[in-house]
């Protein structure tokens, strides 16, 4: 019987892993949708407490209860998420949204971090490549030319570290 190659074993292990992940993804039932929770975490409380609407719980908050009622009413009336959010913006201004939108100048808020990250990553890779181009690999030392003590030291390190 021919022993399988090591590469084949790794490939089979990878396939098994992917299969296991796929099976696990499909296991079990998903929870019911919770639009209310999702939307109240995309809005801010407008009382000045700087908290997410769904998490604002300070006693006697004058605004959050009303906002949450409006949100429930919006969902019950069959509006889409965007229509509900637009309604809040019309009533309270853009500050009611917990994050910038993906339109107009707001888009810059989303793009800038990734642009900076990409540019910095690219710059670093190019810099390292430029530094490393033309550099010779460390010269291999002929073990036979070393003195016995050094040879023994290297051998012990090799043994100890399992190289």
């Amino acid at each position, binding site marked *: 019987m021919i022993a399988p190659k090591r590469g084949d074993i790794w490939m089979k292990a990878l396939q098994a892993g992917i299969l296991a992940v796929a099976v*696990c993804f499909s296991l079990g039932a998903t929870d019911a949708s919770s639009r209310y929770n999702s939307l109240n975490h995309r809005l801010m409380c407008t009382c000045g407490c700087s908290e997410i609407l769904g998490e604002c*719980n300070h006693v006697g908050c004058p605004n959050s209860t009303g906002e949450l009622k409006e949100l429930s009413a919006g969902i019950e009336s069959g509006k889409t998420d965007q229509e509900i959010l637009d309604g809040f913006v019309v009533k309270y201004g853009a500050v009611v*949204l917990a*994050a910038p939108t993906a339109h107009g100048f707001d888009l810059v808020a989303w793009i800038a*971090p990734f642009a900076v990250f990409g540019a910095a990553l690219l710059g670093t890779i190019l810099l390292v490549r430029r530094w*490393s181009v033309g550099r010779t690999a460390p010269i291999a030392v002929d073990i036979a030319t070393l003195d016995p003590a050094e040879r023994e030291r290297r051998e012990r390190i090799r043994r100890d*570290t399992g190289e």
Partner: protein
Amino acid sequence: MFSLRARIILESSFMAAFGTIALLIAFALAGYNLLAGILALRWIATGQPAPISPERLADTARRAGIAGFLAISAAAFALVWSVFANDFSITYIMEHSNRALPGAYKFSALWSGQEGSLLLWAWLLAVYGFVLRLTHKTDVKLYAYAGTILAGIQVFFLAVLVFAAPPFALYQGVTPDDGNGLNPLLQYPEMVIHPPMLYLGYVGFAIPFCFALGALMMRYPGEKWIKVTRIWTMVTWLFLTAGIFLGMHWAYAVLGWGGYWGWDPVENASFMPWLTGTAFLHSVMMQEKRGMMKSWNVWLIFSTFLLTLLGTLLTRAGLVSSVHAFAQSSIGTWFVVFMAIVLAVCIFTYVLNRSHLKTEHHLESLVSRESSFLFNNLVLLVACFVILWGTLFPVISEYVVGNKVTVGAPFYNRVAVPIGIFLLLLTGIGPLLPWRAASFKSIRRNFVLPVIAFWVTVIVCLAVGVKPWKDGALDQGNFYALVAFAVSAAVMTAILSEFLRGANVISKQTGRNIFTATWLLTRRNTRRYGGYIIHIGVVIVVIGLAGSAFNRNVESELALHDKMNIGPYTLECVGFSQDSNLNYNSEFALLDVSSGGKKAFQMSPEKRVYLITGQPQTMVAIHSVPSWDLYVVYEGTNPDSGQPIIKAYLNPLVGWIWAGLVVLVIGTLIALVPSLSPSTASLRVPVRTGPGTTPGEPALKGGRL
């Protein structure tokens, strides 16, 4: 301005006058320290003939700095004394204390307002300066430069205290019988230590900044300044870390919203210098070991200090809206001007002396320990940029398009969380790569276990129900949690395998068991293995943070013996009552909590209303076990029924965050301890003599493996 100061001195109580005079003396001493220091160092640098000995002048400057510490301490003492003496003739005391305030909180009134916290800043700066000036014999010239730069910073803070935000200003009109009291949110044990910790971190970064700028000014040869500042930087970093975590715990326990980090601008302001400081702690290793990234390191520490000033500006000037920010005040202008001066000095010094910072080596491979440090720095700085960008974007948007927007948690969750996970990944990869260049063989050998751990964790998590998909769409929270768990497992495996590899070597050499060998390994290179322990702490914290994706809560009005269920717990209301003392009235509920049909423990969430301010305050009841926290909030009473409204949260893995902090602190303390030197190692490590070894050998290997 003079007449105001004169009036304060003439009319105030003795302690107010004493404090004001002490501040004026401290200001004068800091001014002398700065001017005399500059003159002396200039004369020494140029060799110009001087009317007096520059060395003696520099020493008088140093002594003035020491005396300045005593003067600022006297001012801080005067303010604390006045708080305890209920001296409401001082406006600051009247606004931030009252007679019924418990002693510990009276003490914390020192930093509860703008003037007091600036005084605390100045005092801590003086404490650091005192230690710096006392230990000047380590390197007299470098310390003279650092001490003089520090005096410049002290002059700024003292000028603000003397001219813009005097803590001993007198109350206009008839002195009230009682004060306004302390903000109820601050009346919590953590608040007695969180701000000083945070300030120790903020202020402490001034010291490595002074050394870096001083070393650049004097074109200091070698990397000694980095070795000198290493302990300062690590201790400062530790304080800042502890301060941030204490703040998180305070937010968790007091604000009653079930979370601990809200991406509030002031939270962000404390996090930004932490990120750049962390980057600095990593990249200085490149400079020490390979003479690389010298300019980078200098700018990292410059940026860190500038970010601490920016953080203070955000808190003090009302630049952005925040639950932490004090009322808008004129001192914002002071900080902007000072930051501009600091930046100008940094740029000028750098341009003048940048030739001194030429790197000695370059990176040789993209896959090496050096490049992992570089990428680590890159990611930390990008994270810092993201947070700075998110914090300032509302201001930028208002300026550019006249439209103020909110940048809250959803933005950071989408942008900063992936960057954080990538950083965590680098935490695991870096230690597995050798310096200079890695061979494919070594990469394969080192990465097999972490990769297996990653995929096993993914499969296990999916199997137990951590699914990144919900109703056919990506569930962002669950997806990040899954990735965070898997990467954490991989990183933990990588770090533990590093420990195991080293410990096995020592175990073979000494015949000790693996645990003793691990301890010896750590002692032999405390910096490296202390660092690994810090990374373990970070992994534990990340696991705790990832748990927030599975938070759930339930709210209910509970009549007597009504029950509510959350997770494995059933909460039964067995009583609700009221109480009062001199400081506040409170309402609370008594809840019997049962699990599996058996009564397990009792909780008592509470709501207080402080008498002086009339402000309400939540006192959350928390029952913490490793798997989750049961977090119960008394939300108030239904005005119609008079029954308490209880909100209960089940927050998975929160305890891991605080446990991670403990590990992180232990790791930092270990990294601060000097490694066993070869000579001491030879005394402490018995050697198993065998073929190829001689009794003295391990001692020679003591420092590094």
